[in-house]
């Protein structure tokens, strides 16, 4: 897709049955930013986000969240993926933003807005310590979890000009 198109759907994946991963590969570098909108069904929905199929200890995440009773914040560093919860008993709504994803100079950050009605609400920031352009995203269900049928993952490209 030529640069200039903005909020352009790059790809959508809808889980047809219980599966353990969703991948976006060969992501073009023609946009400025990426947005992933995830609507997850299912009560067991803990995932690892891995970028560029890199399983090195290059990820960290800082979280602020609430469960309806109290607010909390925590952090994990030198992880092999960005660990995230995406869904619960009700459909989870997650919006992930990867700004300046295709530059080859800076490490990459990710902002996640987490919404699980009846569960958690929060904002997570993830860091991928690599200057490589992002060309692949894998959402991998953690042990004991899976991606319920009809869960949808949509990747959009945002162009500045």
């Amino acid at each position, binding site marked *: 897709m030529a640069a200039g198109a903005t909020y352009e*759907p790059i790809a959508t994946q809808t889980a047809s049955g219980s599966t353990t991963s969703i991948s976006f590969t060969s992501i073009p570098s023609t946009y400025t930013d990426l947005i992933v909108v995830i609507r997850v069904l299912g009560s067991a929905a803990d995932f690892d986000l891995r970028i560029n199929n890199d399983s090195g200890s290059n990820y960290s995440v800082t979280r602020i969240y609430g*469960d309806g009773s109290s607010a909390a914040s925590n952090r994990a560093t030198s992880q092999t993926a960005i660990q995230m919860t995406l869904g619960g008993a009700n459909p989870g709504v997650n*919006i992930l933003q990867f700004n300046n994803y295709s530059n080859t100079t800076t490490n990459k950050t990710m902002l996640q807005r987490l919404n699980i009605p009846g569960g958690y609400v929060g904002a997570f920031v993830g860091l991928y310590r690599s200057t490589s352009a992002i060309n692949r995203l894998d959402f991998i269900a953690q042990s004991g979890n899976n991606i319920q049928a009809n869960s949808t993952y949509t990747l959009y490209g945002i162009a500045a000009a």
Partner: protein
Amino acid sequence: MANTYKLIASSTVGSGGAANITFSSIAGTYTDLLLKVSLRSGASAFNDYVLLQFNSSGGTAYSDRQLTGNGTAASSASRSGNAQMYAIASSGASNTASTFGNGEYYIPNYAGSANKSISLDAVNENNGTEAYANLSAGLWSNTAAITSIVLTNNSATNFVQYSTAYLYGIKNS
């Protein structure tokens, strides 16, 4: 270019204010809805809750989880059994003049047959002692497609002049 992030309708409140902002006859042709609001109410309080209701359907079908910061501390709370979804997205008349609350509602799969989840980011700024930043995960426990949205103030006062709301449709293909 795909027909996505398309402005469906907008509303700007004129002089004299408006008791509500309504979007009706929303087509089911998009994947998700995005509603951006900039609102101020006539309530005398510092902040006023914005109430959002779908399809003129009240009852007890709305619930939410909230994460809120007030400049001093973060807290979390929940609501359930309401006739609307609450949002800290409207400044009251005691707030700094010409300062409006802002909010963004993201509603995926709004035309689908499952209950509807809502992502809300909202702020209520004030050059004084009381202001809020709020994240909410909302749920409308109703499987009907969303065809209308009504915004009102919890105080039952008018939205003041220059309050705005923009409704966008987002397609994933």
